[in-house]
């Protein structure tokens, strides 16, 4: 005994699903179902109306696959899908793995449908029709598969404020006043000329670079079978014909004399560009000069110079090692995790950051990229020495009573002594500038300490040192 099924052109997936559900509920084997219809040579019976006793369950991913394969133009797709359903129900093979032959075939069909839908979204070209009220557009398109129905939702969402129609040989989609409907297909309609098409052709011909011809890349993405409905492709032969000649002309023309008047424009603009003051006399001038600093190689990898900030007449100055990742991006010192720790400690000690001068021994961030991060690297001795020019300027212009050296790099920059910090912490040394320097931990060192108790101890040390520095400089709580 065999059964025949006829499915409608529209809403085919739901119809197939309903038919397949009834067939599998009666456990009708794939061989006994003829999806080509009931009107065949050996007049087959229609499926029973009522469902049978068996209930098949399929994974969601199969339904998704079927929803795509159903639009394929191959007539056997309906039978293949039922075959797959039959096998899933009997747990034969792993239909959804690309290693299964039937699964692979269905996946390829789904892929072809997906690609066809994508190409439709890309290659439909509307022309405007005369309108009364809403603007009206129409297009003729020839998809490879029956993809207009699943593909037209995209146009409905995108072109919601206009009426449009896409005609294909099998089906016509019509969007009017916000409602999408389908009509039978037909032959290519006669669409009126559209002035925008001329502009589009102008754009297509001019955006093309004749010096780089890659025809294979073009043909693989814009297969020739779509060309007949793409207005711009008519230009391609002429564009190619001219290309070589245009490039040759460019090469022969070689350099020409500059446009008259150009030099004056350049001179004027360049004169207005910021320049680095050679001998800065104020903090602002020093900052302007430091922004241009190229004394070492760090400027090329870092984002920007991070200059100090705070009070220009501060009695207390705090010097860290170098800007970190965050400081480099924001262009301000002590705004990253370590900076936040320092600012918290300062707040506890009753110090307003606006009344001190916060800066770093090195003004550019030194790092090594690791994965998606930029990892801090210690500045080399030479880099600290190159950058001392800026630190010296800050010391000379701010003239603080006391400087706090945060960590070993700052201590070396300020005192010239690179001995380990452990025994020096909490001590006051004389800086290269002839004034007192208090040595303490760098907040980043504290942040990175893995041991909680040591971390708490170090934080206490920092707090103690900063408080006593504030006191010595006459800042903070009385």
């Amino acid at each position, binding site marked *: 005994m065999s059964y025949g099924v006829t499915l409608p052109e529209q809403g085919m997936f739901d119809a197939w699903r309903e038919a397949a559900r009834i067939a599998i509920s009666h456990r009708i084997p794939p061989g006994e179902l003829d999806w080509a219809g009931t009107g065949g040579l050996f007049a087959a019976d229609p499926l029973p109306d009522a469902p049978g006793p068996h209930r098949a369950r399929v994974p969601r991913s199969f339904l998704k696959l079927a929803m795509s394969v159903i639009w394929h133009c191959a007539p056997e797709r309906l039978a293949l899908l039922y075959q797959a359903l039959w096998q899933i129900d009997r747990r034969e093979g*792993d239909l959804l793995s*690309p*290693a299964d032959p039937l699964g692979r075939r269905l996946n390829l069909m789904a892929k072809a449908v997906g690609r066809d839908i994508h190409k439709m*979204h890309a*290659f*439909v*070209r*509307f*022309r*405007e029709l005369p309108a009364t009220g809403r*603007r009206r*557009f129409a297009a003729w398109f020839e998809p490879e598969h029956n993809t207009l129905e699943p593909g037209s939702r995209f146009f409905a*969402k*995108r*072109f*919601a*404020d206009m009426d449009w129609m896409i005609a294909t040989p099998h089906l016509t989609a019509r969007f009017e006043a916000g409602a999408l409907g389908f009509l039978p297909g037909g032959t290519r309609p006669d669409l009126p000329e559209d002035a925008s*098409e*001329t*502009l*589009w052709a*102008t754009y*297509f*011909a*001019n*955006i*093309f*670079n004749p*010096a*780089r011809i*890659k025809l*294979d890349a*073009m043909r693989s*993405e*814009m297969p020739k079978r779509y060309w007949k409905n*793409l207005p711009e492709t008519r230009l*391609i032969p002429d564009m190619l014909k001219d290309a070589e000649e245009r490039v040759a*002309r*460019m090469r022969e*023309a070689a*350099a*020409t004399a*500059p*446009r008259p008047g*150009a*030099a004056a424009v*350049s001179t004027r*603009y360049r004169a207005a*560009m910021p320049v680095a003051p050679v001998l800065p006399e104020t903090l602002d001038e020093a900052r302007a000069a430091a922004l241009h600093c190229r004394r070492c190689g760090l*400027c*090329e*990898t870092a*984002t*920007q*110079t991070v200059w100090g900030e705070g009070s220009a007449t501060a009695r207390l100055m705090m010097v860290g090692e170098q800007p970190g990742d965050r400081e480099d*991006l924001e*262009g301000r010192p002590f705004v990253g995790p370590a900076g936040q720790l320092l600012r918290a400690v300062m707040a506890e000690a009753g110090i307003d950051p606006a009344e001190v001068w916060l800066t770093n021994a090195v003004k550019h961030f030194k790092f090594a*990229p690791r994965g*998606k991060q*930029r990892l801090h690297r210690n500045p080399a001795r030479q880099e600290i020495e190159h950058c001392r020019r800026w630190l010296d300027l800050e010391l000379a212009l701010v003239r603080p009573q006391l400087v706090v050296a945060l960590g070993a790099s700052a201590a070396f920059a300020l005192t010239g002594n690179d001995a380990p910090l452990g025994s020096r912490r909490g001590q006051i040394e004389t800086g290269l500038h002839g004034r007192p320097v208090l040595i303490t931990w760098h907040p980043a060192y504290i942040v990175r300490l893995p041991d909680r108790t040591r971390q708490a101890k170090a934080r206490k040390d920092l707090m103690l040192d900063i408080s006593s520095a504030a006191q010595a400089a006459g800042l903070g709580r009385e």
Partner: protein
Amino acid sequence: MARTLQDKLAILSDAAKYDASCASSGGERRDARKGGLGSSGGSGICHAYTPDGRCISLLKILMTNFCIFDCAYCINRVSSNVERARFSVDEVVTLTLEFYRRNYIEGLFLSSGVIRSPDRTMADMVRIARTLRQDHGFKGYVHLKTIPDAGPDLIREAGLYADRLSINVELPQDASVRRLAPEKRPETIRAAMAQVRLEGEAATDRTFTGRRPPRFAPAGQSTQMIIGADGTDDVTILQSSTRLYTGYKLRRVYYSAFSPIPDASSALPLIQPPLLREHRLYQADWLLRFYGFTADEIATGAKAGHLDLEIDPKLAWALQHRGLFPLDVNRAAKDMLLRVPGFGTRTVDRIIAARRTRALRYEDLVRMGALIKKARPFISLPGWSPGGLTDSADLRARFAPPPQQLSLI
């Protein structure tokens, strides 16, 4: 003489073609069901292809090609004798909307020469984007090029309307920028990229009240580097890209082979654009972003700082590290599978998913999308063992194109 819209479009699209970017993917999902025109989100759509193999996804034009900068590599530099034109705000808006309605494009990619000052130019560009978004409810894709040295407030406003912002680093080394583009300053270009990153991150954080901050360029930022206009080698270029990716979270670095321009400056050679080199750099860039390679690792397969033009960079690396191969496809870790020449990220994902349930055989690999011919010397699994192939002396020659005899003059 008044130019027609068509004349201007010809001039200002011709002037824009040296920007390689055309992506319209990523960003936020939106459509016109609740008013307005257009949609975006998900994968981008390429609406057409020109014979140079590049896709047309966006209407890529300059607002104007008048420019007060004098960048030697650029056709629009102040000293060039090229024809000049300028669009009005309405002209750009109308072109964008009318092209969009006919399904020619996904949106607008607007760049510009610098007129009067960087700030004035950027303000005009922002006005175009604002008009599209606010007056016309345009929901398609907008990519704005940020003008170097434009103020932070203008960049912030641009991010409100644009899906993507980009600022070109132009050349891989600061010294080359200073030499060939004297008005551009590498440090301010980087500072602008840092700002775009920070603004973008701030826009995804919710406030304490749970309110969303204003959007900021949801499709992120990208940049472009010109290849072959200066003497920088490929490894230096890749190190430069690594810094751009890690520092500013760029979605893409575009490499653009320097191609001859009409009315060229005498500072540059009018050579055939190094298209193959550009292609190898893109391959290496993919290795950086999706395959866990570092620039220094890629460098081990390079010759004198340059990528091998005859074979792809992953294969070049693998040939220098044969001690790590052959890999047992059924047991190797993901990060090593990604390093097998001929295996893409999707192939590797499929292998990992499939080998959970059963041991894979050689025949399975073809169906998973692997390029078997390329992968064969570097893998072993049931049904295949490379034997001495992995270490054979002529392995490179199997993949490199055959040597060509020089022709006699």
